[in-house]
């Protein structure tokens, strides 16, 4: 339900990254979505499709969503486990001193930018797209 809000935020991030690198557009980007991130990957992809049509720098960009499963590290016995359900206990020793090392991600991890190689004679260049 908040996927559209997230993607609008993502669009601002991509615009900022383009600005920083003097890029005209994003051709490809990758996200990491943890099982416990509260985001439904399919809904996120749908929201990206809708939002990117309205945002110059991300229009037609390819997107890859990596789903990340929960990974618990036990502070007592050192086990690393990947429980199917969200149970914050160590399946090996029963300790509740576990930390979610993975599974809460909601990350932009890779962006491919297209940067026009402007020659000196083209100083005015194309104007920067705005969102």
């Amino acid at each position, binding site marked *: 339900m908040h996927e559209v809000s997230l993607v609008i*935020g993502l669009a601002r991030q991509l615009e900022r990254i383009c600005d920083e690198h003097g*890029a005209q557009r994003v*051709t490809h980007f990758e996200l990491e979505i943890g099982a*416990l991130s509260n*985001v439904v990957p399919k809904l996120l992809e749908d929201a990206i499709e809708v939002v990117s049509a309205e945002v110059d720098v991300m229009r037609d960009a390819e997107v890859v969503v990596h789903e990340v499963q929960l990974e618990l590290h036990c502070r007592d016995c050192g086990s690393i486990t990947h429980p199917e359900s969200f149970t914050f*206990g160590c399946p090996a020793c029963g300790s*509740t001193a576990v930390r979610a090392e993975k599974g809460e991600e909601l990350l932009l991890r890779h*962006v491919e930018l297209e940067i026009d*190689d402007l020659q000196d004679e083209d100083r005015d260049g194309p104007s920067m797209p705005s969102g």
Partner: protein
Amino acid sequence: MSELRQIHLKESLLKANDFVASTMRDRFGSQGSFVVNLLSSPGSGKTTLLEKALPKLQERHSVLVLEGDLETERDAERIRGVGVRALQMTTGGACHLEAHQVQQTWERIADDGPWDFVFIENVGNLVCPASYDLGEHLRTVLLSVPEGEDKPPKYPKAFHSSQQMLITKVDLLEHFDFRVDEVERLAKELRPDIDIHHVSAKTGDGVDAWIESLLSARERLFAAS
């Protein structure tokens, strides 16, 4: 000619929200305000519990409520009805509050303080609000007896991210097939150290104990800083 450039990064999609939230948490703390973010489904009794608890808390402390709703001032009006200052934040249909909304509202009210306690009543929804840090010091999730036992595994993030859980409307326990032990077990699977209280805004059971837990949480926070 154009070139393709690869940028590797690990940037949270919630970076902007989290930055504002963290700034606000520092501001709240420096102004002596202990901030509680209340999460629950619609109808779990957040407003009713505040109506019952806050007049007592206000006998010795200054209290402010920030009400988050899709539309209308109804909840803020109910809180004002028991003599507690309340501001409404309408999200215009959005399913959750974000930190910048809290920041904008705080700009309007901070000078009227200091506020010892600020309660943010989030939009009734156990999904989206769980992802947004509002700069609170304590996140409290409410689960009412009529909702049933299985809310924690259905909404894991809400329970995993909360330090405190209130089982509300416990006066209705005799009418529902609701095993308190089972709910507590399910919540602790998601958050082993979650602080659980049983309350009834109708009979007043557990309300004082909840207020005590807030007073000591505030004391711990400001003793530590």
